[in-house]
């Protein structure tokens, strides 16, 4: 959460005209349309050359999100079903950086690969591909990175239930934190 150089926002709005800038909790996020995913990165690479990571979020409405809200608490609004792909790029002088984000519909989870812009996107895209089932078009070798041969499913999708949790709910009814023993 560094003090952003005033230049970054100007540069971004110039280089990525279609991007929507938001900043919360010290994290800058720039939403770009899916069609301009690669171009946005290419336009920002000169200013933000450090490729930190790429990953995705599976936004799923039909899955309990966190815990059910207490009575009286505001209820979580409806979540739009989609994959959100995120990538973080930054510089190595002032610490400026931002998260680029784009949405993919679940029935058409395809996105152009960043490997031609940032070579380091290679492994990150392979991971996101196997974990979420996203197809990165133009990736030179989209083979599984972690999962063994013959593994079925995409583990980081919300619809993929963790086997151990199905066998035995845990932490279960007894909440160790609520049971006391801690300060405050």
């Amino acid at each position, binding site marked *: 959460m560094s003090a952003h150089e005033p230049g970054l926002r100007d540069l971004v709005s110039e280089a990525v005209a279609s991007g929507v800038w938001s900043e919360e*909790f010290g994290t800058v996020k720039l939403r770009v349309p899916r069609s301009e995913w690669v171009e946005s990165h290419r336009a920002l690479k000169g200013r933000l050359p450090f490729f*930190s*990571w790429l990953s995705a979020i599976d936004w799923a409405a039909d899955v309990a999100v966190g815990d059910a809200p207490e009575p009286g608490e505001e209820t979580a609004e409806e979540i739009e079903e989609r994959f959100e792909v995120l990538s973080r790029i930054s510089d*190595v002088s*002032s610490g400026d950086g931002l998260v680029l984000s784009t949405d993919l519909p679940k029935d058409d989870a395809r996105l152009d690969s960043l490997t031609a812009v940032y*070579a*380091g996107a290679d492994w990150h895209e392979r991971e996101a591909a196997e974990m979420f089932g996203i197809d990165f078009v133009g990736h030179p070798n989209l083979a599984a990175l*972690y999962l063994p041969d013959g593994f079925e499913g995409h*583990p980081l999708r919300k619809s993929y239930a*963790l086997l151990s949790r199905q066998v035995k709910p845990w932490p279960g009814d007894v909440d160790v934190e609520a049971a006391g023993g801690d300060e405050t």
Partner: protein
Amino acid sequence: MSGGGAGVLHSEARVSVELQTPEMTLNIGPQHPSTHGVLRLVAKVDGERIESVEPVVGYMHRGYEKLAEVRTYPQLTALLNRIDWTAGLANEVPFVVAAERLMGVEVPERAQYIRVVLTEMFRISAHLLFLSSYPLELGASTPLMYALREREHVLDLIEGVTGGRFHPNFNRIGGVKPAAGGGKGQRSVAQDLPRGFLEQTRRAMAKVFEVCDDMEALVRGNEIFQQRTKGVGIIPVEKALEYGVSGPNLRGSGVRFDLRKVEDYLPYDRFDFEVPIGENGDCFDRYVVRLEEIRQAVRIVTQAVDGIPAGPLRARVPRVIKVPRGECYVRAENPKGEMGYYLVSMGGRGPYRVKIRSASFSNISVLPWLLEGALVPDIIAILGSLDFVLGDVDR
């Protein structure tokens, strides 16, 4: 070998045997002492020269990002300090800071200083491990004894405070672990740092400083060591940035960038320390940078111990921790490089999604590029100099 007189016999017979060097696939690992865990390299070699290398990772994949979605916030620190097991506590810090940021919790100063002291001790411990294992991989077994002896003192201090040598699980949202012992009646009197900790730390830090000098004399100036490492495995700056190579590996290539100087996850701006860099980006420079970083970490620990303020160890937080809706990315300078968490909370007792950005993952993703054209005997020198931990690669 042709001896002195043998030349006469063979003077007319020119040996013109073309060495057959068909392309060969060489499998290195998964079990190999220099791979720091379980890493497999599938190398295509032409004689001694490497044509291409494909690292095969995933042997240590434990699915932390999935597990993070079914655990509560207080439970998660116990998992996360196992990502890079040489840096225990340092893995917990960015995560709890991310949660604190979303909750708007202000961490007491004393807790922040304790986090700094322990993070830097883990940095010293991780780098001392490197200083001992790297020469060992190149054939020098003596430095191991020196570096590990001092590392033991540091681990003892860590154990005294946290109760664990590698997996402290010491951070809490809002501060650090509060009172242990004393019984229910005395819970209000928080148990603090162990008695004599500050004094023992000063003494141990002086010892660590000395061992850096020993290492300097034993290893850095050693001609064999220099021949094995100088000019080997050069990472140019552009490649390092593009692949996300961070930490000492990036600084070895001459980039003076340290997240402790630009991010505010811990109050590093109050301490006076330098960011050492290399010149050529080769294995030797990466070694020297880590050696220097130990000295800087010693400076930070000494200053933090001298200036540690009194006060509570933990902010007042609800007993059941719920993190309000929001997303944030918090990154920290860990011993291996940039470690960060992208935390997405939907207001529950556990995260909706945690993306774990681990340093070693990006640091070794440069391997296929870096090893292309290198010599087979240099593989070990290059692998070792990147100082990765497979738990940090696979998560």
